[in-house]
């Protein structure tokens, strides 16, 4: 495992731990399910006289949302990781501009 892989895994573990901790603290403090702020504001908008929020495609169940969001995260994450290596690896084929590499503060 190289340094990049190790650092990425450490970041992953820390973020996951933070999110799990925040969720449990939030549920204990507020006794709510910590739903999205977007949904809460949508409900506020509807109550204020806006239209009924809905999906033009299909409505996902709660579990469907978990799967869908997870899938987007996985796919986007794989894209990000693959292209990150391509963009920043020293041996990448991406043309480098070496004429004016200036370290600056």
């Amino acid at each position: 495992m190289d340094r990049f892989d190790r650092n990425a895994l450490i970041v992953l573990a820390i973020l996951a731990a933070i999110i799990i901790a925040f969720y449990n603290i939030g549920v204990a403090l507020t006794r709510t399910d910590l739903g999205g702020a977007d949904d809460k504001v949508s409900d506020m908008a509807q109550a204020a006289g806006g239209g009924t929020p809905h999906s033009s495609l299909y409505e996902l169940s709660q579990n469907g949302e978990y799967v869908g969001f997870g899938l987007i995260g996985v796919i986007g994450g794989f894209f990000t990781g693959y292209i990150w290596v391509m963009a920043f690896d020293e041996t990448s084929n991406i043309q480098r501009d070496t004429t004016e590499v200036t370290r600056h503060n």
Partner: protein
Amino acid sequence: MHISDGILSPAWVILWWIVALAFIVVGLIQIRRKSAANPGYIPMLALMGAAALVISVWHIPVPVTGSSSHPCGTPMAAIILGPFPVAVISAVALFFQTFVGHGGLTTIGANDLSMGIVGAFTGYGTWLAARKGGFGIFIAAGMAGFIGDMFTYITAAFQLAISIHPEALLNYWGIFMMGYLPTQLPLAIMEFVFTGLVIRYIADVRPEMLKWAGWTPPTVKTTKAIGGAV
């Protein structure tokens, strides 16, 4: 700030689409020009697009407010790609997010305006102003992330207020902002940190990428910067 279908009036849905499309067209032209000049631009465009997709579905619980929300990622992308191309990648990300019920299909224009346009331009403008003001890269990029994030949600609140109650715009703008901002403020601080770290990393490893968006680093190598070389 992902506004669902059905909330905004049709007239405003169409107007936001027209505004967003204007920026998207300019963004596509700029993408074509920048990718011809820099072969590495397209991979970074794809990287930032994927990052914006993930970051803006990344619901993070905020314990004290009882809700969760997500950062934007578009200010970070604007610093590297330029603000107009971010309108394009943001629209693509929003399109895919409709398939998981995160934002509406008809409101892609409105959501792109708040996240991909206002978020990108305010973030990019903050970056330029902070760098010109002598702030270090981490602080300048962090400020860009924070300001861009905040203005995204301020814009979304404005879009709701002007569509639903234009006669009491300021009043309802404030109400909807209070719906978003308490949860969003800690996440904007988080966006400050990760935007600063990513841009700092790029400045160390591939500093030439920061010129793609039109920002020219100072030629004096030892410029003293406020905030230090974090």
